């Protein structure tokens, strides 16, 4: 259903409020999972005959198990403050993509069966019966939410539509309507260890190839160790880092930083995946199973520390949930954050002065930075609130001369989603992904007009893949998206590396602050 007729939304400004276009995105839905995708995750293969009872049972269970879900369903006053905050609404104009309207798709059913007003005066409070049509309406519109939480920043009560979306997807999965993309991927993690289904020998091969690439480029041997027992650091990174562009350039960046820092580290083939799609499908048990793999890998390899590579939702699960799901991590070195973000590590090394950096090597780039939702609004990187915004920018400024921020109302905690998060990074949703990226792209285009910005850096595997796909629709090259550690990789001069740029012109080695 990759609609070739996608009309690129034209926005004057990134946050332009569109006129309502009811039904604009009606019926759009990602492929429904087959039994072989659902069953390994513990869900029924297909729509169960008693779906109505099962769905309502699950809804009641979630309301008892999750305070957020319960209070958010009760407390919305329909003030409308969130109505213009969702990038999918801005990009599509479909009123059901307004966060409160998205919540109402489920709230209306909750009211009908679980509240006094909805039971006896349904017309008064917009309560409605649960029908099969409603289920598929949920399936459609709860897969038009990237769980980015932008709406929760602006709601006076912090109502987080992402929580409702996760609950809705969980309910759907429990009656047999799973999403193929996410469920198939989770199945691969259980079977093989990562989202891509890359088995150990292939992974070993890939890493060897990367070592060769670095040696070819720099003349220095930099290792990318796999399953090395007794290493100090376990690196858990999204599997896209193993071969997608520009992710892989970021991975080479981490390797160079570890090399210069002189630490011993390893990747695990058993937990060769930072991503945790259990969050996308809103299922605690699956999210926990996936997280436990990381704990097991850390124990088996006997590491002292865990560091996560560049990924948004993976970092949310790592930072905010890992301790809950797979803790306590008392067997790791408590002098370091558990887990630590790769940017925290790199920024630490830059401050210590271990890295020799030549910023001019990024001079062909005129850069801006995209705050990834899950890092911005659902986690932290350093040891103070807001460090998730400053540390990436500090690192960027240390390795790159030409940098500008996009408008403040589209960055930091107000950042706009890339349009592909939350389990929507699939070809069957291309139309939505292009439209949802419009606000972010418009903010970037403005910067290009003002400062000639050419590139966009991000620290999320999904953002990177999504932008590779949508940047060309908005007049940029597909490789205008960069990993932050790719910039680090460009700038770092390894110990013993001959700077053979131009034999006559010695490259200026800028020592970091």
């Amino acid at each position: 259903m990759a609609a070739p007729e996608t009309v690129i939304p034209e926005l004057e400004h990134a946050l332009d409020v569109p006129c309502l276009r009811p039904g604009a995105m009606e019926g759009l839905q990602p492929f429904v999972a087959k039994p072989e995708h659902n069953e390994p995750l513990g869900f029924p293969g297909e729509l169960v005959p008693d779906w109505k009872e099962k769905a309502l049972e699950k809804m009641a269970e979630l309301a008892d198990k999750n305070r957020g879900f319960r209070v958010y369903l009760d407390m919305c006053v329909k003030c409308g403050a969130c109505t213009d905050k969702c990038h999918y609404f801005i990009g599509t104009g479909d009123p059901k993509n307004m966060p409160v309207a998205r919540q109402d798709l489920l709230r209306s059913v909750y009211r009908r069966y679980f509240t006094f007003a909805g039971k006896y005066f349904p017309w008064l409070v917009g309560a409605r019966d649960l029908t099969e049509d409603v289920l598929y309406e949920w399936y459609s519109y709860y897969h038009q939410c990237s769980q980015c939480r932008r709406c929760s920043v602006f709601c006076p009560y912090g109502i987080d539509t992402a929580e409702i979306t996760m609950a809705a997807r969980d309910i759907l999965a429990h009656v047999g309507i799973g999403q193929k993309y996410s469920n198939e991927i989770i199945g691969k993690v259980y079977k093989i260890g990562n989202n891509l289904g890359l088995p150990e020998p292939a992974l070993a091969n890939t890493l060897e190839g990367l070592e060769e690439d670095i040696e070819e480029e720099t003349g220095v041997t930099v290792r990318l160790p796999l399953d090395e027992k007794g290493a100090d650091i376990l690196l858990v990174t999204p599997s896209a880092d193993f071969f997608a562009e520009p992710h892989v350039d970021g991975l080479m960046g981490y390797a160079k930083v570890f090399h210069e820092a002189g630490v011993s580290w390893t990747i695990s083939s058993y937990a060769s995946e930072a991503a945790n799609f259990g969050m996308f499908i809103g299922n605690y048990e699956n999210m926990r199973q996936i997280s436990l793999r990381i704990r097991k890998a850390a124990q088996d390899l006997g590491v002292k520390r865990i560091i996560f590579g560049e990924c948004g939702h993976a970092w949310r699960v790592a930072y905010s949930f890992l301790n809950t799901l797979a803790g306590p991590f008392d067997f790791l070195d408590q002098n370091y954050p558990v887990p630590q973000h790769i940017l925290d590590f790199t920024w630490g090394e830059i401050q210590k002065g271990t890295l020799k950096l030549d910023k001019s090597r990024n001079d062909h780039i005129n850069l801006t930075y995209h705050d990834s939702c899950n890092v911005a609004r659902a986690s932290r990187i350093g040891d103070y609130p807001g460090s998730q915004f400053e540390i990436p920018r500090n690192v960027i400024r240390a390795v790159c001369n030409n940098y500008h921020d996009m408008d403040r109302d589209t960055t930091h905690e107000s950042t706009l989603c890339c349009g592909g998060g939350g389990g929507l990074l699939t070809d069957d949703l291309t139309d939505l992904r292009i439209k949802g990226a419009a606000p972010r792209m418009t903010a970037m285009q403005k910067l290009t007009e003002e400062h000639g910005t050419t590139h966009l850096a991000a620290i999320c595997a999904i953002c990177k893949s999504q932008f590779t796909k949508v940047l060309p629709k908005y007049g940029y090259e597909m490789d205008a998206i960069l990993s932050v550690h790719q910039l680090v990789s460009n700038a770092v001069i390894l110990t013993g590396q001959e700077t053979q740029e131009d034999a006559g012109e010695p490259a200026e080695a800028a020592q970091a602050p």
Partner: protein
Amino acid sequence: MLSVIYAILFWAAAVILVAGLGLRIARYARTPAPLKIPTTPAPMTRSGVVLRMAREIVFFESLFKSNKWIWLFGWTFHMGMWLVLIRHIRYFTHDIPGWLALAQPFGTYAGFAMLAGLLGLWARRFLVERIRYISGPSDHLMLALLVAISGSGLMMRFVVHTDIVAVKVFMLGLLRLRIETLPTEPILLVHLGCVAILMIVFPISKLMHAPAVFFSPTRNQVDNPREQRHLAPWAAKLEQ
């Protein structure tokens, strides 16, 4: 006869309000938050969270960031309402302490602010396409109820005065479980009737946002998931 009806109405409303609120709040308090989901950047200490919450409740901080018009009307309405409520304490206490006497003129004019805010919010429900789309009958009715309460209140204060001393005697009587005589001006009956309805629907309507906001995990959680393991009781069972 009217006095008896209103007395029973108010006693019933008070019981429903208190019991309903108690049950709902107990429910919120009992339901665990399985994961750490504060909207970040979030405070890293309890006291930081208290401050964040205070800014939300006193200044409507997030709403201010979000939409200046809704903030202006919403904040004016709520703050006006608080002053009006404070002013009304005089009808429930025998002696009026100095501070309460001092609050009277503020409370009186705050009534206008309250009404203006309400009308502003209501106008948006008609004029702004997005908000018209999300407004249901109950949202309009709730505003109608509040406008009726503040409108009738202002009428009694500035246009058709009512026997306020008798009203006070009636109210003080209710507190002592005695039925005194209530004046019978229609406007007063409308005012009190609407207040009773509001008390009754409070626990089963969106008015629950007032207590529920304190339970919102995105706002009331401390940002310390790495330092302190957070585990819901039902999730702990998965580990056995």
